[in-house]
């Protein structure tokens, strides 16, 4: 969102246009900047080269092997995999016409969207409460990030204990609502995916919390203070200054969480193994069933590639969104430079 004329965000531009914040550097400091730039470049390459080596040595062979399986009809019951028959695109055709995969994709998208929104709303809410220093902040900080450090299987089993029909969660809801609540969290096909979603949100709220905490802490104080001096309400400061400045961070938090949620497996599997019925058969669950219960290694490989393509499409879209957000911010800061000039 770009600032509209007269909005509090325009104050940001005015504030940032102060010569005090000019970071261009004098001609004398240029050699130092060059040395610094060279050091940064060297550091980048030293990190990148390691990543490239890992990619080539580890990921590439795996991807190639997967690709081989995708084009060969290998079955563990039919001899060695290197002798498997070449089947062309047959397996891909089978995968894209498989209605079970279609439903698995829909369930995964629903799950990822729901849990991402849940994580973000709660995580952001907590971050807003926590980002200004206060006494005992560190304690709450540790408390809030604990769920993220808990093993997903433990979360699943703990959740199971809490979510039985006669369990503490229904008891709590009953006492809050003043009537008997008998939600079948673990046995109803209509609520099973929601159950995993609730546990996922509990598990990963800290992730959104940490990112949003970092984002909020990095916001410049001056525009907020200036807006307050100009009489802006807290809500207006939040909506018109903090939120627009946080947008790239918000988008990043949402994208990373969404990608992570699409791959959720341990909780869904340990609680439901795809059931009741097929209510929790998401992409990872179905992939596991096809590959490691049906032992359709080749179909599993082809399916992985199809899913990979979907994920790449999502990531590209995400990068596009992030880039647009960055451009929005750049525009704000560029207008500041122009004013300075």
């Amino acid at each position: 969102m770009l600032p509209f004329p007269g909005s509090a965000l325009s104050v940001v531009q005015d504030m940032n246009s102060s010569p005090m914040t000019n970071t261009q550097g004098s001609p004398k400091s240029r050699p130092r900047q060059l040395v610094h730039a060279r050091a940064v470049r060297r550091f980048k390459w030293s990190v990148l080269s390691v990543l490239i080596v890992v990619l080539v040595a580890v990921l590439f062979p795996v991807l190639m092997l997967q690709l081989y399986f995708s084009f060969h009809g290998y079955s563990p019951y039919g001899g060695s995999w290197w002798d498997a028959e070449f089947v062309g695109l047959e397996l891909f055709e089978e995968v894209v016409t498989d209605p079970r995969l279609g439903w698995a994709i829909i369930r995964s998208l629903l799950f990822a969207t729901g849990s991402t929104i849940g994580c973000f709303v709660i995580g952001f809410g907590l971050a807003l409460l926590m980002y200004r220093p206060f006494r005992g902040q560190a304690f709450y900080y540790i408390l809030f990030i604990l769920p993220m450090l808990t093993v997903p299987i433990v979360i699943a089993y703990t959740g199971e204990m809490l979510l039985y029909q006669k369990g503490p969660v229904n008891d709590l809801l009953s006492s809050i609502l003043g009537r008997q609540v008998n939600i079948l969290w673990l046995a109803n096909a209509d609520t099973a995916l929601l159950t995993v979603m609730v546990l996922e949100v509990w598990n990963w709220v800290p992730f959104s919390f940490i990112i949003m905490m970092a984002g909020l802490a990095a916001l410049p104080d001056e525009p907020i203070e200036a807006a307050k001096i100009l009489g802006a309400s807290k809500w207006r400061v939040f909506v018109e200054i903090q939120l627009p400045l946080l947008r790239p961070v918000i988008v990043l938090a949402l994208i990373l969480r969404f990608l992570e949620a699409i791959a959720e497996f341990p909780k869904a599997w340990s609680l439901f193994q795809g059931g009741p019925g097929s209510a929790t058969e998401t992409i990872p669950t179905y992939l596991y069933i096809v590959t490691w219960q049906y032992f359709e290694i080749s179909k599993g490989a082809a399916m992985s590639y199809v899913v990979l393509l979907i994920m790449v499409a999502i990531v590209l879209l995400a990068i596009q969104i992030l880039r647009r957000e960055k451009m929005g911010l750049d525009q704000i800061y560029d207008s500041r430079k122009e004013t300075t000039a």
Partner: protein
Amino acid sequence: MSKKISRRSVVNGGLTMAALSSLPMPRMAFAASEEERIIAAAKATSGTDLKGMIWSNYYVAMKPTNAPFKQGAGYDVGSIQDISVFSIPQRAMAEAITRSPEFDFFHLDSNMIPSLASAGLLEPLDPYMEKAGFKLNAVGNFGNFMKYKGNTYGIVTDGNVHVHMCRKDMMENPEEQKGFEDKHGKKMAYPETWEDDQRLMEWFHRPDKGIWSSGNLRNRPNGVTWWYMYFYSAGGFPFDDDMNPTLNTPAGNYAVEVYLNMKKVSHPEAPGWGTPQMIPRIASGKIYSCQYWDGAIGLNENPKKSKTAGKYIYGTVPGSDFSGKRMHRSISSPVAAILVNRYSKNKERAAYMAMWWATQKNSETIVGDNVNTFHDPWHVAHFKSDKVYQTYKAGLPAINSCLQVASPPIYLTGLLEFQDQLAKNLSEAYVGQRKAKDVLPETEKAWKKIVRKIGKKKLKAELASYKALFPKVNVPS
């Protein structure tokens, strides 16, 4: 009366003995005990201690028997990878695909034998059994569960079979008996058929008192196990001789009906419950009846762990008259057994170790462990053993009778795939995601694809092994 022995006859006798002793005869043939023969055979091998993939819940009862073997043979199990028995099929298949010699043996459901043997992982054990003079002395036809295409691929450690259990204390109540008789016009009695069982369960269904009558599982991974019992007892078999699925038949639909009918008397959370949730309900008396793995008997009858010691009657699982004759069919799945890795350098040594655990004496120790009750009786001798009786008490004869009518799940290559397709559709029907009438046609469609993929010819060749596992009797003695 004395008889004179000449010098010539002594010399002749000596010569005869010398000649006889030079004949090639099996070294262990003379009267050595089962254990001694196995140790002698094991001692002749060379190699290292063994590495196995086994769930510690099972291994903990087996371990105490290792010391004498180690003393005699010079080796035993050096290390294990502790994985749940339900996850080992996948891990074992991964070992098969990579042809890994890493593990010497796997302890898993023997119903995976066709799949794992087809993947080339399993070592046939018959030559080693012959060397050690070892035989699996199992009740009824149960020993055949270890066989595939004429070879023995497994050594059983756990005679898992479903046994019927119902509440004696509830059935012996005169008021209940009278009420039941008034309503149904027949005396309350131990259920002989699934229909009898349903009637009794409906009678004793008391959710207001915390008793949901049925303790049978209806979750996706396990519920299908019960369906097999209904199907087989109605005379059904899932394939014709040309490997066309024959699920959508009167017997199949009868089985679906029995399966879904039980929803009336099952806990509303049953679609999500497995053994960890159901066992405590059974042992705390919150059900009226169920067919359950026989290990539950040990728990029920242990007064320190259960509120129901002495309160259950155990017997043969109900049967069906659907086919025109009374037929009882229990189910054995999973049957935990030791399977030996063909790629292992210690395969012969692993085979002897497995046999050691399955001797009469050692298996009695393992099965008779009343704390770690993961291994259940299977050996003929277990049913005469005081030690085993102390664990299973009144349930022991029931285990015997159910073993006599024990049947397998789909004992073919591709078991997990066949089974999950059926399990998924049944579970969908149970929770209302699918119409009951679509369960079997849809499963048949999926099964046809599986048959095509694995190969009709190959599967047809396996049918004989599958059929050989079925009991020879319809009603156990």
